[in-house]
């Protein structure tokens, strides 16, 4: 019997050993019920959409994406140091049925579903109705941002306005694309909700009534241009009826004026025009004309790498000298006396010696604030661009320093000018990827241009001229006596240079083929005379800046076979 008892002990032990506590739970989750009850958790869910809305593609960790530079490169504003950079590849890429280049593709349906979920949570929520109303408006603003970001690429989109359950019927799931007009109307209606319910006084970095107005102005202007300038398509996925152009222009004008006249975001100016215009982009916070922006903070580890790419050789630690302005882009910036931007370009014949004070430093203050130019004094030293020194002598540079025989290779071998916008002049030798200059998403400068263009297109010529001249006046550029669409377009280029507008403007205006397709682009080589610091220059075609195609089909990027394979009711854009 004792033996039996011992055997029983054994068996008890045996089963005890086989059991571990298997009811564990993950350590990083919150239940659905908790979120429904707590406005702070809804806020955190909304914050996720801000974080992934891609106001600005940011790739500090990935060195070769350079996604943030893509729009400017494909838009022909500037190019990059090397053709293997993805942003440059995107500009060579002719999209096929396989889809557009990665740097240009954006699909926001995950975020759109989150917006829809938030709106549904809030519709059932029982906390403070004021907060509920405001959070719904915020979700709608963000949803509009994401639909616009897709519509400008792909045309009419399938519109998802509810978070559909997984067991929805096939008809409900496999919805067709909406027309481009319906897509834009949806965007505008969401923004109207924002205009109504978003706060006037806003937390920096969050959507406000003014941000909704500004985005509506942009969306309506795009819609109006497409209606006016793009040919009608049979299915309406890549066109908007011509007849509705004027009403969209009117909306664009009204919303732009609402911001301009709202008084909350007046244009920023100062005693020194170059400094005042430049500081808009590196101070951002506290600048009155900034309507909506994405904030960065080095101490908290939210950083980007703009200056790491942009700073010229001699002023940076890692990358740098990466964004080179084309000669043709420079030609769009007038001189301060109002003379044409290419006035002196005839002197770039590799023979004529000229004074850079006159040829370079008399341009529009916005040029000088946006671009690093030869011998520009930055952080107390000269930025050198000259490919070689000529003759003998020891004429010092503009900051009084001795002059090297040749500028560093990266400064002299490409465009001859580099992008300066957004670089904080107080930060010396920043390590790559440690910038925390905020990114401007919406600012009042654009509103003046939207207003001017929309007014012009609806026959309000005087208003068009006034808005244009007001923008010029803040940097003391002489007023235009007459206004044309070309002038407005040029002013838009100058004011919004390197702010990722150009590519989308060219597409909506239907100007992209003429401005981009296989256009030969030039840079400048500078030579400095040692005796007196005079310069001569030649325009040169550096070795990878050609062959950027823009075919008619590229006005609308393809959905791509994999997306089409998902839903038999989807139709591809023409040409693919």
């Amino acid at each position, binding site marked *: 019997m004792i*033996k039996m008892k011992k*055997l029983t002990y054994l068996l008890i*032990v045996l089963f005890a050993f086989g059991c571990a506590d*298997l009811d564990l739970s993950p350590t990083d*989750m919150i239940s659905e019920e908790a979120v429904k009850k707590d406005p702070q958790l809804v806020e955190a869910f909304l914050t996720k959409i801000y974080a992934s809305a891609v106001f600005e593609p940011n790739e500090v960790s990935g060195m070769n994406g350079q996604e943030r530079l893509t729009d400017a490169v494909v838009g022909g504003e500037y190019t990059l140091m090397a053709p293997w950079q993805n942003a440059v590849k995107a500009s060579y890429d002719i999209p096929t049925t396989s889809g557009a280049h990665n740097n240009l593709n954006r699909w926001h349906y995950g975020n759109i579903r989150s917006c*829809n979920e938030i709106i549904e949570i809030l519709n059932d929520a029982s906390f403070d109705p004021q907060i509920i109303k405001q959070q719904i408006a915020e979700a709608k603003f963000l949803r509009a941002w994401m639909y616009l970001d897709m519509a400008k690429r792909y045309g009419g989109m399938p519109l998802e306005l509810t978070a559909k359950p997984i067991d929805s019927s096939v008809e409900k799931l496999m919805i067709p694309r909406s027309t481009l007009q319906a897509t834009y109307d949806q965007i505008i209606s969401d923004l109207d909700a924002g205009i109504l319910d978003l706060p006037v006084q806003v937390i920096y970095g969050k959507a406000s009534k003014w941000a909704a107005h500004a985005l509506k102005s942009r969306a309506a202007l795009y819609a109006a241009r497409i209606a006016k300038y793009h040919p009608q398509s049979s299915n309406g996925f890549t066109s908007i009826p011509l007849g509705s152009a004027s009403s969209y222009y009117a909306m664009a004008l009204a919303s732009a004026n609402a911001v301009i006249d709202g008084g909350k975001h007046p244009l920023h100016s100062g005693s020194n025009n170059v400094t005042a215009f430049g500081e808009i982009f590196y101070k951002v916070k506290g600048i009155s004309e900034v309507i909506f922006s994405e904030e960065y903070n080095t101490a908290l580890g939210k950083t980007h790498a703009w200056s790491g790419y942009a700073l010229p050789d001699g002023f940076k630690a890692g990358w740098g000298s990466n964004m080179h302005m084309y000669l043709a882009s420079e030609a769009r910036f007038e001189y301060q006396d109002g003379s044409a931007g290419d006035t002196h370009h005839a002197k770039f014949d590799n023979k004529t010696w000229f004074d850079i004070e006159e040829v370079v430093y008399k341009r529009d203050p916005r040029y000088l604030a946006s671009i690093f130019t030869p011998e520009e004094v930055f952080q107390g030293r000269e930025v050198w661009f000259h490919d070689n020194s000529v003759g003998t002598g020891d004429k010092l540079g503009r900051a009084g320093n001795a002059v090297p025989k040749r500028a560093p*290779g990266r400064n002299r071998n490409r465009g001859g000018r580099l992008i300066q916008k957004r670089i904080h002049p107080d930060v010396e030798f920043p390590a790559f990827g440690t910038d925390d200059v905020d990114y401007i998403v919406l600012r009042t400068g654009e509103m003046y241009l939207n207003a001017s263009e929309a007014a012009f297109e609806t026959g309000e010529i005087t208003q068009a001229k006034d808005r244009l001249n007001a923008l010029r006046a803040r940097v003391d550029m002489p007023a235009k006596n007459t206004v044309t669409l070309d002038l407005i377009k040029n002013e838009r280029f100058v004011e919004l240079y390197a702010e990722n507008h150009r590519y989308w403007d060219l597409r909506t205006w239907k100007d992209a083929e003429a401005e981009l397709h296989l256009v030969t682009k030039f840079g400048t080589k500078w030579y400095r005379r040692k005796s007196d610091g005079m310069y001569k220059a030649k325009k040169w075609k550096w070795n990878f800046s050609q062959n950027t195609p823009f075919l008619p089909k590229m006005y609308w990027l393809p959905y791509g076979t994999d997306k089409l394979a998902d839903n038999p009711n989807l139709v591809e854009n023409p040409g693919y």
Partner: protein
Amino acid sequence: MKKLNFMTILIAFVFGIGSLFSQKSITGTITADGLPLPGVSVIEQGTINGVNSDFDGNYTITLTKENSSLTFSYLGFITQSVSTSSANIDIVMTVDIASLEEVVVTGYGKTTKKTLTGAIGTVSSEALTQRPAQNTTELLMGQIAGLSTRQGGSLPGNDAATLSIRNFGSALILVDGVESTLGQIDPNDIQSISVLKDAAATIYGARAGNGVILVTTKRGSDAAEGTKFNYHGTTTWSSLITMPKTVNAHQFAELMEENGLGAENEMPEYLNYDTTRKRVVNSITGEDFDGVDWYRTMYKDWTPQKQHNLSARGRSDKMGYFISLGLTDTESAFRDADYISNRFNIRSNLDAKFTDNFSAQLDLSYRQTTLDRANFGISEMYNRLGTGKPTNLPIFPNPDFASQTGAATPYSPIYMVKKSHSGSRVDRDNNLQARISLKYEVPFIDGLTATASLNMETQTEWNKQIQKKFNMYTYNPLLGEGDAAYEFFGTYQRDMISVNSDRDLELLPKFTLNYENSWGEHDLKAIFVAESTTFERDYLMASRTDPLSWEAPYLNYSSEAERDNAEIFLESARSSYVGRVNYDYKQKYLFEATMRADATARYAAVGRWGYFPSVSFGWRISQEDFMKNSTDWNNLKLRASYGLMGNDAVSNFDFLTGYNISSGFYMFDGKPFPIISSAGLANALVTWETMKIANIGIEGTLWNGSLGFELDVFYRVREDILAIPDSDIPFHFGASLPNTNLNSRDNRGFDLMLKHKGKIGNISYNIRPMVSYSRGKYIKWEEDILPTDGVDADANAAYNKRYVLTGNWDDRQWGYQTNGFFTTQSQIDNHPVDIDGANNATLIVGNLIKIDQNGDGLIDWRDEVVIGQGGMPKWNYSTNMGAKWKNWSVDMLWQGASGYTITFQGSAGPWSHSGHQTVSKNFAYENRSIRGANGDIEILRAFPPTFTTGGMPQVDQNASDFNRVDAMYLRLKTVNLTYNVENKLVDKLGLNSIQVYLAASNLLTIDNLGVYSGSYDPEIVSGTEGGNIDRAYPNSKTMTTGIKIGF
């Protein structure tokens, strides 16, 4: 803690038992072939009481039990059992031709080769200590048919070979029954390794789907004998076997000129290019400047590595013990050697016998590995090293000034690998494992034993990174003498300190009931195991920037401005019950059945338990009457097995819905705001993958062991692979659907091993070739398959052909077939096919001519064809060879693989002519001209100047056959010459044995890489599909002197 109480009960319970028996002595002589056989192990069956025969083959043993029997065993001879009826027993041992008595470790047990029914490959301790290896995984190369091994580089601390059984994926590795890693075990501690290739692995259930590798460590010797000490020491010199050769300064300048970039543009100020002589000239001295090879500057020619192991092994009446201390010290080939890996292993495996039926084991093992290195990323360093221009000095006349490669961006690979510049990084892992095991032979049921064990393991990984900022300079002697010649160029990284710590705790109690008995011609074995695992991991990290001074490189004394820290906690648990029955009749018909039940916390309580059965059969045909007396056949056995296994490491809490807390944030008004995001839709039924494997094997030995073979053919289906079922959901639905057990794929193949041994005069030799093959298909894959009827039938069929995986081999690479280059603009203008989608307007001379497969005049995805295979070799082959002559022996291992594709890309690709990025490789320079269209004229492949600053033209970026090689290689993996010092001399020194050896590895490689051969390693490359083959630390050849001393 509850479990520990049961442990106490058990200990108390078993301690109470014990008794004594009367004693009796037996003596005898053991011979073989008429000569005395020393060293035969004589053991009293069922006890650990034993002795060894002496030099004259005599033995004397004192019995501890009545009516017991004696077992006589000696490696290579058939084991015999004799009952102790008389006081004098003489034994004649016979050679075991077919190694049938060889003990094979199986899941939760042991068996002999003859009664094995599964496909199990084994490696003995002798094979593992024939040569040194930094990482024990290397030692399994070419040892077992069906075990694919690839050595992915020899970087200290990152030198594990990937092990995959039949290309299934990562196998489960168990060391003495506990899930572990193999690489850091001292090979001198290993008794044997078993590789369970078929349903034999089923006994490990939900983790066993990709096969199981069982490692058994040494214990006290079998028989009672004095303590034997062993010392094994090696000194190794290693040298890298592949290194890309870059162009010299003159060739570099020539390329720049050819490509219209201007040699002068890419050169330091003090060098000039003489275009007529095509020579780079130092403008100060007027001498030709041949240039510098940055790769050669980076490495030393030979690097030392040392290993020592001292162990003691023995057994007395009550105690058996194996204790061992090992250490390994390895340097990298980087010139400054700021990259050192070392390892300490301490192990103590003790067996104690308390009473006749009660014994215990206490196993302790401790391991410390340290990787002490300069602070840089390997891949980043290679990326930078590739930009080292031959015209730029890697080391300046004053080496305090850090050089840069001459690339547009400040890169300094030579100084990145120096602790003095980039800072340091120390990874220190400590692993302590303790196991106590109590075994009770139940006295009232014959053959029943009960074992309880508790394994506790704690692992601490600690990492400290000191990241330093350093300045790089350009050198220009034209500027002046001394320091004046150096100009600041840029900096690398910023000052920062980070500390990470990761603490794991694992608890594994196990209870085993074992039953073993025979009745006449029936043998029965049964085992029942209950075990569970609980695991916790707590990860902590902290970092700060800008320490006040490097004199005090600690977090405390660094800037408060950018403090960062984090904690991540994980836990998991598993419960299992295992059962197995073995039955054989006349040791001729063999049968085995197993069943395992596994449950894990990863899945919802409903359906958490999984059941994994297997059956296997063996038929020893050679035991049948019609073959028993065959003079040809020594052994012939047919085996078959079928089993169901799982892979449960595929999903974690996917059954829950809710919101995930993100570790990220978004900024509003200067403050970070927290983020939560929907965890997505959940699948309450999500569960493990299921593997079904069938195996048929035949093994035999012929002509007195002269020829042996083992052939296994297998088929495995892998089902319930998780996939997101989005083929019915459009992308604009917006939510990722939950993982669902949907997909299935399979593998098929065979493993074949042959053995031959023989004798020519005084020389005995053996050769053991093996080959294996494995290839997989997608059986069912969650994907869009378009309907092939209706209006879009043709278009849909084309889509399906190109993109659908279901029903196809799993290793197809798609891309364009090419037919040379465009060599003139008129050739482009007249080309009938639109290659770029813009009527060839963007093409330039040098672009690839892609073939229009469907004849529609346009190149797009419809023209893609299968241009390559996977990166994992389908064929693996190897041969072990050995010969013995007197005290000398020589062994060789050849190993190779084929049936895979290497894509040469990045700086390894043919497109690396470049101004400011990667410097061209010599083979690209040599092969830069191509045959013209008319066949006989060499035309310079002037890579289009429009693209040369960056490499590959855009239109050629798509995958094509141009830079792919269907690879194969055969490598002399090791060769080993051993000498056993004469007995007389050894005796004189008072030692038992001395063996000295010379070993070499990776001496010779034959491959088909063509121009890439010698620059890149086919063995590394096969492991980096889609990766940067030019960014791996190469494999090494090694030369070793080793000595083993027994005393």
